[in-house]
């Protein structure tokens, strides 16, 4: 992958810039003495992973449910998140049952009549895509496509950077 001819307005370019900046900050923070202890490595791994996910979520042009959910997850401390999702989930269950009865009833019938069992995969997908539990079917499929596109870009860039750092 050629990083020297990046289109400056592409998703890949925006992500690379942000992520490299974050990596520099993380690198600057490391203590001189114990930079190779397993605990240090694990902490840095967490920071790098969060920086990568955050950088990608910030780099998307159109604000997506999954990108907003990612940023919210990484910026909100866990105790506040648990309270928020409790309220969200109980109201969500109410909406789900009512919409199933009205317009989504038609869709559900078609999908299950086509050989059933899509419910399991959809539940799996909702857990994998950030914010997936709150999306209706159309949005879920649409967001999944965009999420996959961004994830592959993220992996490409991270791999290239790691290869470059590995050069001696």
């Amino acid at each position, binding site marked *: 992958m050629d990083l020297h001819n990046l289109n400056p307005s592409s998703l890949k370019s925006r992500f690379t810039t942000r992520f490299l900046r974050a990596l520099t900050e993380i*690198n600057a923070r490391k203590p001189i003495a114990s930079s190779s202890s397993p605990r240090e490595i694990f902490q840095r791994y967490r920071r*790098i992973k969060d920086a*990568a996910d955050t950088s990608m979520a910030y780099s998307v042009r159109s604000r997506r449910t999954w990108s907003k959910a990612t940023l919210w997850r990484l910026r909100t401390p866990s105790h506040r998140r648990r309270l928020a999702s409790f309220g969200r989930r109980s109201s969500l269950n109410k909406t789900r049952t009512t919409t199933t009865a009205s317009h989504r009833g038609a869709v559900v019938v078609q999908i299950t009549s086509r050989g059933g069992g899509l419910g399991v995969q959809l539940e*799996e997908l909702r857990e994998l895509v950030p914010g997936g539990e709150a999306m209706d079917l159309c949005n879920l499929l649409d967001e999944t496509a965009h*999420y996959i596109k961004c994830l592959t870009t993220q992996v490409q860039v991270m791999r290239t950077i790691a290869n470059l750092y590995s050069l001696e």
Partner: protein
Amino acid sequence: MSSRRSRSRQSGSNSRITDDQINDLVSKLHQLLPEIRNAHSDKVSAAKVLQETCNYIRSLHREVDDLSERLSELLATTDNAQAAIIRSLLMQ
């Protein structure tokens, strides 16, 4: 989105419109998946596409994890001068 909802609420035949949209979205997802084993066929079941999608997302998450770990170890050993050189190379 809201106009789609009210249309499908009106009569049973309009559920086919929603069904086609689902098919379109599912086939769009199918295009994104890496084609590994079987020859590209148009008639892949929605369940299979969704299952492959879940597997693909999980493998991408794993790759992000592995690369983060690798970068973490590399940052421990690479000194700042080399990092600065690499960074300036990438930024041009």
